[in-house]
């Protein structure tokens, strides 16, 4: 178990022990294949979500599709 780190996720502070973006997304109860993630202002390509390590202070934007016209 890694030491918990602090993140800003969709503008809200969060603490997690997840090692990668994909782990964190699953920890939230979401499926990585149904969301898109911006990591410190850059798109995190879906193919890399399992590899990209999270660091203390990272900023994440997690989005998905909702109804719209």
């Amino acid at each position, binding site marked *: 178990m890694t030491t918990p780190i602090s993140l800003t*996720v*969709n*503008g*809200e502070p*969060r603490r997690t022990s997840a090692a990668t973006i994909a782990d964190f997304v699953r920890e*939230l*109860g*979401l499926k990585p*294949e*149904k*969301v*898109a*993630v*911006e990591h410190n202002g850059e*798109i*995190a*390509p*879906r193919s890399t979500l399992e590899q990209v390590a999270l660091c203390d202070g990272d900023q994440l*934007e*997690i*989005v*998905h*599709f*909702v*109804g*719209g*016209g």
Partner: protein
Amino acid sequence: MDTASRMTEMQTISTDSADDTWEVAGHRFTSRLIVGTGKYKDFAQNAAAVEASGAEIVTVAVRRVNISDPSQPVLMDYIDPKKITYLPNTAGCFTAEDAIRTMRLAREAGGWDLVKLEVLGEAKTLYPNMVETIRACEVLAKEGFKPMVYCTDDPIAAKQLEEAGAVAIMPLGAPIGSGLGIQNQVTIRLIVEGANVPVLVDAGVGTASDAAVALELGCDGVLMNTAIAEAKDPIRMARAMKLAVEAGREAYLAGRMGRRKYADPSSPLAGLI
């Protein structure tokens, strides 16, 4: 004409209608109706309306996941993106940068390269900001996106968008959500005549006859949301729109009669008693 040859002729006509497809950026579709997925009572009603409309493409928005309650139902649970093409939009974006960022995220969220670009000018009218729209279109096209672009009903702006890489021109018929119908048929027709890519009326449709007008003007399709979602019976209105789009398209292909100033009797004048 004997019965057999009449039957053959009718089959030929119906076959022609079935073959009447349209294509955008290499993707072929039969339905000329694109529907939005906003403003419905719930996802079930939304899905039923999409089904009734016969639409093969739905627009969707890109928004932050609600991380405090991620277990809420999501659109994808009700409208299967494997069966219905998701067209991610940039609704709510007021600058080219915001729109580009949203599209990049949408591509990662499972949307394909075909996207609906809209860059708004002000909240009150939701009129497009064409300078920002053209700028965003250029950047997105260079990044490999296929932008279908919401725009003013301006034939010159339409040409500029095409030069900027738009794969479809989508002029407003009237302000978004207004239901006022197509306010300027002349400019819509001028855009149709000048375009080398599909033209779809996007926004302003209020009822079935408005949708028929769009197709009668020669548009390749029509995009709507509120007209269906805010109808008293959205599923029935979705069906009405499907029929109206088909009727408008058939009328356009049939070629309407000329307009006359005065009457012209339909019954023969010869043989009057």
